[in-house]
């Protein structure tokens, strides 16, 4: 393969400074591009807050990696706060690097105008945008949950969005969508890490032929050996990994545990490997504290706490199941892919990106979202498994590696040289 592509990867954050799923995926892809034979050069440009305010300056982080001190005004208009650097520092960087492809992950904190500047600097630069959530569709932090409640939202509309945000008129929401869509018109192709998210954007207005699904890549290693069981022991160790916030369903998980009769409950162990509870609201923190105390006293619950990415495999070694009890749609939760890399089946809510990745009875268990009784039953059922767990483990398909993920993207870039040719890729 000849080295033809010069790829600038853009992200809303740098993993050196922030450990969100989107920026990690973007950075891993950047490194994979650099190692790919088909790529002549690759760079990483991440938005950053370096404590100096929104200066608009672009600075070097390390070789081929840049930081842009940019921010967006708000999630409603999604305009860049530093307008001058769009046609200044950013345009200069484009002219200097001369990318053939800009692969953007997210536009949060960047604003949408950078898409327009790319085409203004060089209309032949192809833009691909990976969508990590529903921010264009939903003003409520892109969650597609009704504001002020945890009610799931199926589809945006001018009137419904106004009901969630009464200070904005339906006409305001028309303007917001108009602004997003006209900027998305400049994008040559969209990538979605899940089919669920892809379908949501198709319903919203992106033509189906312009958006493809490529799962996030993972660092592939052999599956971890199953946890060694003692005599008469079953697969009764569970763990939650990730951020702790009201959308992740931790409170639901703990309440489900309480529904299990005490005698049976004491046969299982749940670990929480979670971070950032202290940043949540006080009522939420108090609720979690009240729920965890009796379970910890019983020895059913272990609050392990945050972890670094390199610690993940050792922590998964000690458990049998990974729990994803989220009460919002999720997109393509990284933890599901990580669990599969480690050979751990997943018990997840049966909606959105979780339902897409976790197939009940194939690679895990699918549980009714938000249903404490169902979760209670599922935990008891899983905790009693031995051979069935082996079957589920064997049903796990290895996720894409970073290299495979990069190759899939490069195929898209190669074959989707224009919007019209996206049909070919889809086929």
């Amino acid at each position, binding site marked *: 393969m000849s080295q033809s592509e010069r790829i600038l990867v853009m992200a809303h954050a740098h993993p050196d400074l922030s450990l969100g799923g989107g920026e990690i995926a973007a950075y891993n892809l950047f490194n994979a591009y650099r190692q790919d034979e088909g790529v002549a050069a690759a760079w990483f440009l991440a938005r950053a807050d370096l404590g100096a305010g929104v200066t608009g300056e672009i600075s070097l982080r390390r070789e081929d990696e840049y930081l842009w001190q940019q921010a967006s005004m708000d999630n409603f208009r999604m305009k860049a706060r530093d307008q001058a650097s769009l046609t200044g520092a950013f345009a200069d960087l484009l002219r200097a690097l001369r990318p053939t492809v800009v692969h953007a992950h997210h536009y949060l904190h960047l604003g949408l105008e950078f898409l327009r500047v790319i085409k203004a600097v060089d209309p032949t630069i192809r833009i691909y945008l990976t969508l990590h959530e529903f921010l264009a569709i939903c003003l409520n932090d892109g969650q597609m949950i009704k504001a002020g409640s945890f009610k799931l939202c199926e589809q945006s509309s001018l009137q419904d969005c106004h009901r969630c945000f009464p200070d904005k008129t339906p*006409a305001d929401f028309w303007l917001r969508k108009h602004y997003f869509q006209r900027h998305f018109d400049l994008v040559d192709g969209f990538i979605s890490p899940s089919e669920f998210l892809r379908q949501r954007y198709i319903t919203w207005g992106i033509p189906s032929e312009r958006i493809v699904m490529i799962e996030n890549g993972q660092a592939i290693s052999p599956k971890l050996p199953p946890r060694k069981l003692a005599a008469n022991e079953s697969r009764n160790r569970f763990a939650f990994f990730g951020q702790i916030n009201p959308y992740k369903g931790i409170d639901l998980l703990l309440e489900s545990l309480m529904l299990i009769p005490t005698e049976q409950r004491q046969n299982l162990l749940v670990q929480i490997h979670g971070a950032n509870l202290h940043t949540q609201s006080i009522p939420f923190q108090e609720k979690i504290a009240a729920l965890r105390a009796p379970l910890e006293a019983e020895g059913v619950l272990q609050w392990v706490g945050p972890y670094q990415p390199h610690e993940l495999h050792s922590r998964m070694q000690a458990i049998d199941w990974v729990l994803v009890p989220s009460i919002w749609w999720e997109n393509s939760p990284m933890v599901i892919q990580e669990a599969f890399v480690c050979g751990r089946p997943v018990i997840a809510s049966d909606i959105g990106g979780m339902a897409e990745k976790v197939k009940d009875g194939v690679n895990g268990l699918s549980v009714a979202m938000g249903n404490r009784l169902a979760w209670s039953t599922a935990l008891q059922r899983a905790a009693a498994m031995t051979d069935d767990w082996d079957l589920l483990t064997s049903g796990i398909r290895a996720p894409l590696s970073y290299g495979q993920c990069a190759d899939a993207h490069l195929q898209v870039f190669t074959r989707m040289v224009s919007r019209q040719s996206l049909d070919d890729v889809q086929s």
Partner: protein
Amino acid sequence: MALPDVQASPVRHLDAAGNSQFLKLDSVQNLDGRLTLYGWVTGSLELALFVGGKPVDCYKTTSARPDVARHFGLNTTTQLGFTLFAQVSSTQDLCLGWRAGSADPYILSSPLSFEVQHDLGLQSAQSLPGLWPDLPDQMLSSDWRERLDELAYPPETGPCAMGAIDKVLVCEQTGDWIIYGWVVHNPTAMMLIEMPDGSDHSLDGAYRYYREDVARALGDEAGYRCGEAAFILKLPFAQTSGAIKLKVRVGDELRYLSLLEPTLLTSDPVLAAKHLLAVPSALSGLSRRMQRVENTIIEGLLQAEVSRWSQLGVTQRQFGQAPAQTTLSIIIPVYGDLRLVEHQLLEFVMDDWLMANAELIYVIDDGRTAALFEQEIAALHTLYPVAMQWLWGGAHRGFAGACNLGASRARGDYLIFMHHDVIPVSAGWAAELIAPLQQHAELGLVGPQLLSADGTMQHSQLELDWHTAFDLWTVKASERGLPPALNTRMPTASIGVPAALLSSACIALRRSQFDRWGGWDTAYLMGDFADVDLSMQAHEQASQVVILPQVVMVHLQRLSHVQPGAGDLRSRIAIYNLSRFKRRWLGLIAQRAADGHAGFAMPAKPIGKEGE
């Protein structure tokens, strides 16, 4: 125990027999130590004034207070009102005292509050009651006495008329005085307005209307005519200052009721109209009232304002190079929300034909945002390289005036006027709008299908609708809120849907015709209804007006034409504009209606002459 505050609320006095009397002090005036206290009492309490705890000499008169009597269910002719006069050297701890009988001690009020005046302003004089006693000479100085005499009624005759001048406005530009007030009088009394030069004018030419507050306060006093107590009188008068007086003549006897200095009316026609029309009278008679009072004033101010515009400097900025051959000029007045401009640019920049053939002219019509717009448009132009100029005409000109300013700088043979909250939804819209004008000489105006943000039609047609209650045509939006698929006014001609009227939200026409018609009519207040007037211009010139349903644009402001029935100020202005529209186009509308042209409705009964 706190002393009763007789100025704040009525004080109840309970005598030994258990009978209640109520007492209230309405106002206290202090003119250099000459005190006048006005109030009412429902019984026969003895009243006195105290300074520093000691009684001072005072003189008391009484008058009827029908409002108080009615409230307490007493005979309305009972003299419940009182006025106390006193001249004092000190007002330290000035209190009102009262008692039921001479054997009782006085009950004192809390210290009275008042403002000290150093001369008798006309407002003070006017506020004095209509009945005046013969005051003891020692109570009053001669100058005050003289002024009071002017206003006095002899108490022995009783009131045969009451009234007041509430407001006097002077319009310097038109030389008109507008006098607002109310009168009630018995049939033998003749009410007169005396101008500063001494000339008398009857109220016969005034617009008269019912005033609820007057009727409630005075009720059905014997001999009074409260039905249309209020009046608005317009009088031509060369001076701009001097007191104006309301007086009553009964036989040979002449008495003054009220006098007032005038206030200058602003020369800003919109502000002036708001000021004039804010005086409430029934909406159903507003058109007749305007015909008698306000119309010529507002028209005069609008003409003066338009003349003033021509003397103002125009700020102009050009961004980008306009096409060498400019076919089309798109003129967009901007008032208020600037963020909408970016949404238009989002569309314009993606329209290849527009970029190659059209110039964009933004006319800022809002002094509050002119400077900000200059910064915003410069920043936007770096992202949206559309050739454009922006203009600021130094004054808020309204939509029509701003359009005319933009047109004066336009180079295209075709013009599109549009609101800044109208957003095209696909490229090619501008070329499509003017194509019929290029091909069909019989066409005069072309408009798009306007949708609301929710995708429904703002209207399939704008039609004239006769409003019986106001004797005016209003503009009716047909099929508003329906999906375009339910449009029953589908094309009946090859070049679009014939229309009676077009919305100013977006109108395309030839430059030559625009000039021939004299541009947008600036004599409508706030630009409302100038669009329907432009449509009538086209009809008058036998030019066809059409809508192209295939050209779709989103108009974010759902209501463009204000309806007259709401009763707010905006609807009063709408009545002004609709009255003017009716005067101008009555004949042509009747002719169109007789020809069976859709959208021109005539009333079932003949239309009366306006003002009758």
